[in-house]
């Protein structure tokens, strides 16, 4: 990661060194648990619990092979499902939330404040409230056991967090730009599509990354709506690994697959993290 976007700071060498000590210690504490999981993924099952702090004796990929095919379908299927759902959710969220946010940030209409309050109110809903009525609804639509209940709501902008984030960002874009466009005869659609969206890459990227990560990690939705194991997403498959009612447990394989499941989100995060920071930046501070 380059440091080119950082503000110039007056840094004495000593301070710099101290900071690295603090950061290094914090970083170690942060990732120790993950390191443990990663190392455990190379150990045979018996050793994971009986001797939890030992280092693995070899770095064979047995647990990875075993884990990939431990369930009836291989993880190829689960990853594919997860990607389909996550990518479509990202597209849905970006389109629907930005449309909504544009209306709240830039358009004048009757009841704007009221709808905005309603939108913010949905943030507070505990999701178990709507679980059963929503299930019944999707069942009536004939959507259960498909990805539709996981995707369609995103195209209808149910994630108020992203709307809020975008509203804040849009408000930060100087009004002079769209006022000039109106003078040139641009309608709201063109302003949204040709001016706002191109200027909003950071917040769009932020929303994209968060919605990718959250959809990818979501467990309750897939649990409720997916029936057939062929349609399982990665977190649902991971849950199937261990069961307390007895039977063989595959902890080594579980850790192997859990470690692996982190890779896609981590890559996405690494690739776009600089955009995230700018995406949040302008909005929240409103300058």
């Amino acid at each position, binding site marked *: 990661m380059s440091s080119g976007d950082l503000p110039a700071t007056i840094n004495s060498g000593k301070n710099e060194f101290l900071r690295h000590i603090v950061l290094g210690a914090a970083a170690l504490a942060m990732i120790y648990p993950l390191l443990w999981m990663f190392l455990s993924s190379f150990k045979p099952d018996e050793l994971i619990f009986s001797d939890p702090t030992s280092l693995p004796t070899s770095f064979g990929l047995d647990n990875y092979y075993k884990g990939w095919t431990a369930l009836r379908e291989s993880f190829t299927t689960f990853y594919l499902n997860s990607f389909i759902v996550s990518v479509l959710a990202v597209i849905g969220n970006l389109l629907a939330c930005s449309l909504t946010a544009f209306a709240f940030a830039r358009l004048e209409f009757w009841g704007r404040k009221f709808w905005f309050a309603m939108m913010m109110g949905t943030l507070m809903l505990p999701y178990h409230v709507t679980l059963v009525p929503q299930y019944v609804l999707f069942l009536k639509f004939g959507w259960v056991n498909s990805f539709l209940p996981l995707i369609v709501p995103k195209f209808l902008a149910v994630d108020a967090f992203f709307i809020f984030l975008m509203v804040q960002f849009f408000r930060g874009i100087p009004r002079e730009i769209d006022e000039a466009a109106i003078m040139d005869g641009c309608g709201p659609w063109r302003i949204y599509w040709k001016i706002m969206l191109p200027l909003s890459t950071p917040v769009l990227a932020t929303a994209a990354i968060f919605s990718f990560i959250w959809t990818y990690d979501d467990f309750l939705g897939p*649990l409720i709506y997916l029936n*057939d194991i062929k349609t399982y997403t990665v977190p649902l498959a991971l*849950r199937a690994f261990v069961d307390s009612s007895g039977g063989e447990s595959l902890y080594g394989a579980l850790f192997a697959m859990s470690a692996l499941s982190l890779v896609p989100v981590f890559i996405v995060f690494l690739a776009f993290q600089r955009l995230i920071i700018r995406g949040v930046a302008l909005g929240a501070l409103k300058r």
Partner: protein
Amino acid sequence: MTFKLNRRGFGRLAGSTAVAGLLAATGSAARAAASLRLIWWGNPERDKRTIAVVDLYKKASGDEVGAESYAWGDYWAKLATQAAGQNLPDVIQMDYRYIFEYARRNQLAALDGFIGKELNLGDFDPNQLDSGKVDGKTYGISLGANSMSHVFNKTLLDGLGVKLPDSSKWTTAEWVALGKDLKGKLPAGIFFSENMGLLEPRLQTWVRSLGRDLYTADGKIGYELGDLVSFFEFWKMMQDEGLTPPADVQAQDSGKMEESMMVTKRAAFNFLHSNQLVAMQKLVESEVDVVMIPGNGDKAGQYLKPSMFMSIAETSADKASAARLLNFFATDESANDILLIERGVTGDASIRDRILPKLNPTEQKIINYLNLVSTRVSPLPPPPPKNAGEIDKALRPAWESVAFGRAKLEDAAKTYYDNAVAILARA
């Protein structure tokens, strides 16, 4: 109730079940292929076996079968949601506790009309069949029997020269004496036993041994407050004497086998349902063996219970086809060659005889254990009333408040007992 693994009519039936099973599976040639859904809870091992059987069935019958599998913790939320949407799978793996909830709320189909036709249960142990009855009608076919048990670290006790007496007769006093004798001899950090004060099944054997039960036939609490107090006193004594681990160590076991005191090398004795022995042996390096639970009274505390059922949804569009699939699991030879006793020991005598030689030594121990239990069992308890599950789960916090010294023992027992009565009264 008997559980004799005799070779009753083995020769006569060996061939006929297979034929009957296949006939039942395929039905009449003209039948259109059905599309069914099957749901169960389990683990990767069970999933593999179950799906192999499903594949076998698909080939034999031409029916399409969708397979849905969940971990126990997720299963009941999933099933309840599906039930709320009138969208239950056709064939459902059921637990002894929930079968009453689901049957009495008209979610399950009565199977009596299929028995003798699609369901070919001629060789089935009548007692096991009865265990699937709710209010006189059959709502589930038992997939196997098991019983509660104590398991112990045989390698460890053998090393100390300990020989256990005939467990079908031993008493808690003998068991405690053994514990006190072993206390100084066990390696550091290993206690005599896990603490079972939080386990409802253990409480059940306790009160049954006194001639009572958890619930009466009309759905009231079946034991007295004094029984619970004596139960708590016993396990508090075990904890105070250092025969069981301290409360916080014991509480690390959240019910997962991997966290049990036996597997984490903290105790020589552990409570277990007998069908889980195979799984536990896989997690423990030492040899594990299984014995009956010592009695605190003069009655038999244990019983043979169905480990799980298969039921059919009332909303199933094709119950006859669903029954054929169920029958395949319960009675087909090739299917049970794959399933073996992973779900428990089957109630079908001929199947049992057939799979017996295929079992490994640990699985044989289970069979031998159930034979032993069948010499000293009392009948299946009356069905648990509505909300029994909630009362079961409340026992653990009640016991823990005693174990952690948060409440006086008598108070904790009384609070739990009154709470149980209140829960039963509440809809």
